[in-house]
């Protein structure tokens, strides 16, 4: 009876994790597309004009990004609940990394809103505003790549636990571990040799995107497969 109730709650956490994987992805991609559309390369005055003309849209995009950062904690909380029976310490450690990621992405949101003031405030000299924009952009880029390192660390652990438990197909979980490693290499490359790494574009992030969308869809549609882990656990349980 209790085992059934426990399994039911795990199934719920698996579906929640699946949904949150997709939600978090959407909550970061949509604002990225919107915010990028305002940028006029090499022309600060035009960028500022675009943003001032669509200030409300900018605010909505930045707010969605912040909701995405908060949703990371819900996603990792659901994964923690699902995987703590596999290894509670490792699951908690992964949750810690993802919470760090959420903290850093919140710092990015702080800078985004402050940057808006800078774009729309016409009282200061254009050169000073451009300099401030450059400073803020550097802060956003640095905080984002450090957040990606935390994302990679947390994801690698969660995917390892999914691999070990076989809650999702092992191939998908192994791909998730590989994507996490690639992402950490990509993020460190951006921090160490930014100009060379920029040539890669979004290539370093693509595998992680595929792994997260794949895992999200799998958990949402098929849920987690507890059969193998239950059998393994029963075999190793002391009599």
């Amino acid at each position, binding site marked *: 009876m209790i*085992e059934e109730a426990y399994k039911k709650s795990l199934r719920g956490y698996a579906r929640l994790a699946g949904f949150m994987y997709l939600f978090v992805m959407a909550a970061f991609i949509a604002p990225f597309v919107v915010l990028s559309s305002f940028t006029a390369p090499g022309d600060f005055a035009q960028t500022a004009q675009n943003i001032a003309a669509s200030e409300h849209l900018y605010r909505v995009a930045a707010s969605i990004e912040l909701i995405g950062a908060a949703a990371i904690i819900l996603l990792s*909380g659901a994964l923690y609940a699902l995987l703590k029976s596999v290894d509670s310490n490792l699951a908690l450690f992964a949750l810690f990394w993802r919470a760090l990621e959420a903290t850093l992405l*919140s710092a990015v949101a702080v800078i985004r809103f402050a940057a808006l003031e800078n774009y729309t405030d016409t009282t200061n000299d254009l050169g000073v505003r451009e300099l401030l924009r450059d400073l803020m952009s550097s802060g956003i880029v640095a905080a984002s790549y450090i957040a990606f390192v935390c994302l990679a660390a947390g994801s690698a652990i969660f995917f390892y636990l999914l691999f070990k438990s076989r809650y999702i197909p092992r191939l998908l979980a192994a791909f998730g571990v590989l994507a996490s490693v690639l992402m950490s290499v990509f993020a460190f490359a951006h921090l160490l040799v930014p100009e060379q790494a920029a040539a890669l574009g979004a290539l370093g992030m693509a595998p992680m995107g595929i792994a997260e969308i794949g895992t999200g869809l799998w958990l949402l549609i098929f849920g987690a497969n507890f059969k193998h882990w239950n059998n393994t656990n029963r075999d190793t349980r002391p009599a």
Partner: protein
Amino acid sequence: MGIFAMKERTSNGPPVPPARLAGLLYMIVVVASIFALFSQINLFVRGDAAATADNILASEPLFRLGFVALLIGNAAYIGVIAILYELFKPVNATLCVIAAFFGLVGCAVSGVNMVNNLAPLSFLGEASYLATFEKEQLQALARVSLDLNVVGNDIGLTFFGFYCVLIGFLIFGATFLPRALGLIMLVAGLGWLTNSFIGFLSPSLGDSLYGYLMPVSGLSEILFTLWLLVFGVNVSKWREQANVGARNQEDYE
């Protein structure tokens, strides 16, 4: 001596986390936040970086005291999160972990944001390397820091809002606290979340609603704090719920 060594031991059974200590720490958070708010808010002149800079420099000790109060409040909040985690673990351990992480991220965001609270004093100081900049440029940089500080506070409050909502849900599931307190914490959390998001989406509307939302959320949290401080929790009911949880765990294992 750690806080968990101070658990109440009134009879046999699992030791009860010190709810009154959580209330005391929560009260420190409330008092420190109110002090910081009132010590700094009158110094800001909307749209006038020069006047704000003059006010800050004229009241530097008070400005610094406000910063120290924020720091103490943030540290005390971590204690509150730790004790409430132990207190509500018998209700739903997983939800408790998620709530604790929301609270901790809120503290981390607020902690990082404190740099922005103190930075204006650096920009407005008399360090020789600042001579490179014009006075107006330094005043503008000080204003940017203050803007960042305000936004950072609202973003920190978003996470505290989620934390209060989750604590509200945990109180609903608890037998050792009145359910009305759950509703009160839910109101507090939703108030902070509404305050933050309306402020992000429409600052003018946010400013006009702040005067209503802040007292509602603040008073709700103060009510919860006073309850913990004065009444604590129903110890026998807490033990009962903790024992049921432990038995269920054993049965499953």
